[in-house]
């Protein structure tokens, strides 16, 4: 995974609540099989009309090169589609700042080198007005701070393990496999003894495979 340390960029303002993942990445593009190249469909219905670019914020210079998006409450709610994050990342957005997020979207960001920041009250208003003025923000994950254009710094919280993973670009699966293999195996032995019905390796799955379920 791409690491995230610091980021300095202007931020695109999107002052609209409840922007769901269907709006961020419409379902008909979910037929695509790769993560790469999804940026062209980001906010598709907002960015294109009859094949032409609209004046949606991400189409307008200088925001078309923004690496930060400042959104409103409940950003990324709805569907679990990680395509929403892949599309943002492919477009070049590495950080989303909003008062609250859809939970699955929030978790997905961290898996893709994108930092979601929960900003509240006055802090959010300051970040939004910097975005609207097209002034650059500086996001520092190590220090957990956003520097505003006037030099003022706003702190933010982030889960320690997620912060570490982002800072180092950690391969989370590899880490679990190398560090927790024994604990997982021990858990499985215990569970299989206590709740054997949870273990489909006892022949039930094979019977399902063999059963004639097909239509003639």
């Amino acid at each position, binding site marked *: 995974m791409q690491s995230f340390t610091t980021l300095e960029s202007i931020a695109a303002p999107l002052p*609209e*609540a*409840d922007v*769901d993942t*269907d709006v961020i990445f*419409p*379902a*008909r593009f*979910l*037929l695509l*099989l*790769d993560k790469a190249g999804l940026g062209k469909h980001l906010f598709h*219905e907002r960015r294109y009309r009859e094949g032409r670019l609209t004046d949606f914020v991400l189409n307008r210079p200088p925001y078309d090169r923004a690496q930060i998006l400042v959104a*409103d*409450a*409940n950003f990324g*709610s*709805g*569907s*679990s*589609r*990680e395509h929403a*994050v*892949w599309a943002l990342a492919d477009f070049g957005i590495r950080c989303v700042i909003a008062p*609250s997020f*859809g*939970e*699955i979207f929030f*978790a*997905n960001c961290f*898996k*893709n080198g994108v930092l979601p920041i929960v900003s509240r009250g006055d802090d959010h208003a300051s970040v939004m007005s910097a975005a609207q003025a097209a002034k650059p923000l500086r996001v520092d994950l190590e220090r957990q701070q956003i520097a505003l254009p006037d030099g003022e710094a706003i702190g933010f919280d982030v*889960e*320690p*393990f997620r912060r570490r993973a982002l800072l180092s670009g950690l*391969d*989370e*699966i590899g880490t*679990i*496999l190398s560090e*927790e293999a024994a*604990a*997982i195996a021990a*858990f*499985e032995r215990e*569970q299989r003894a206590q*709740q*054997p*019905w*949870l273990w*489909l*390796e006892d022949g*039930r*799955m094979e*019977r*399902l*495979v063999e059963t004639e*379920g*097909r*239509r003639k």
Partner: protein
Amino acid sequence: MAGRTLYDKVWDLHVVKNYDDGTTLLYIDRHLVQEVSSPQSFAGLAGEGRTLRRPAAHIAVADHAVPTRFRDRALPDGLAARQLSRLEANCERFGIKYIPMNDDRHGIVHVIGPELGFTLPGATLVCGDSHTSTHGAFGALAFGIGSSECECVFATQTLRQRKQKRMRVMLEGALPAGVTVKDIILALIARIGTTGGAGYAIEYAGSTIAGLSMEARMTLCNMSIEAGSRVGMVAPDEATLAYLKGRPLAPTAGQWDAAARHWLSLASDPDAAFDLEVALDVSALSPQVSWGTNPGETAPITGTVPDPAAEADPARRSKMERSLAYMGLAPNTPLTSIAIDRVFIGSCTNGRIEDLRVAADIVRGRRVAPGVSGIVVPGSASVRLQAEAEGLDRVFTAAGFEWRESGCSMCVAMNDDRLQPGERCASTSNRNFEGRQGMGGRTHLMSPAMAAAAAVSGHLADVRTFGMA
């Protein structure tokens, strides 16, 4: 020690390791795989040369992109065909049981998981799909995840998670005639908002629950995510056991008694504490319909389209104005005067046999209104076959509905079942987001009974005026 909730108990049974920072490595028993969220997970595994830790813990089915008009031939070449063959190839390569679209066990992941007995009480179950909360109806700890997390489950059978806070929704009273569990969940979301459940695992409890079928409980838990909560659960009881007994992947005869005893012990302790309590008297509810572009923008059918001018909060007002502009609705319009073009009965929320029975009861002996077209899409092949055995398909087709094959269909519009720009649909699905049923399409969420009533009326209608039993 203070009592534990249902959620606490299932969580505790799956802790592989607790970390110092308060997060947990949680064991995942079951994983449902579909065509949309899995290609990138499999590609990630392949890229790292990884294999599945437990192939038997996963079942795959293509539900989102499949056509509902036919099952007897392959899809014409195109993106959907390629997505299906990619899933099939990945299942072959990684050793996962794949249920083809012409199989009698085909269906939407959240419909077939329970039908197969793959979904079990007290299990942890995930899927790269936000409506995985559905399976909580059985007392499973079930939640939607992204593709990267799916990849982690494939490789490790675990996820690193932080425990949610606990919320209990107490449902009291009996449902009035014409009011269903869909109306309960829509009314709840309208009340607590689309973020009201964020950060919480919901348990649905109260006197209403005992009288609800498993199908109804699934509808309830399914839409927890629309209130912002990834988890919605109901404690296992005799109805749960009766539903599961004899299902293909349910515990074998020798295991059944121990499993059933264990499941019944999972109910929240009487002294268990919840971080948040919400109560709803369901006996006072009217049928609900959504008027806006998220499920919280819902009102009783007896009401009118709200007026943004009456909303004091500027952010809420502008969201409302946006919703009404998209929906093409004027403030203060009576909801029953809103004319519709299309009707969709189906989805993982309301595509089960009971839903089709209720809708058929309204439609029987009536005709879909002129200018309206309706499709009925069973949630699974098994639902379809059951409905056909009961003659429901003929009730629908006699009324002018199209009777289709199983799949997600117009809930998500990834196949050719979709609204045209500007078309208005009475839908039993779960999301009325902009473009959800097709670009520019306008969705009104409601129960199957209400969608049937709208179909024969040609406009949104109060099903209670249809002289039901």
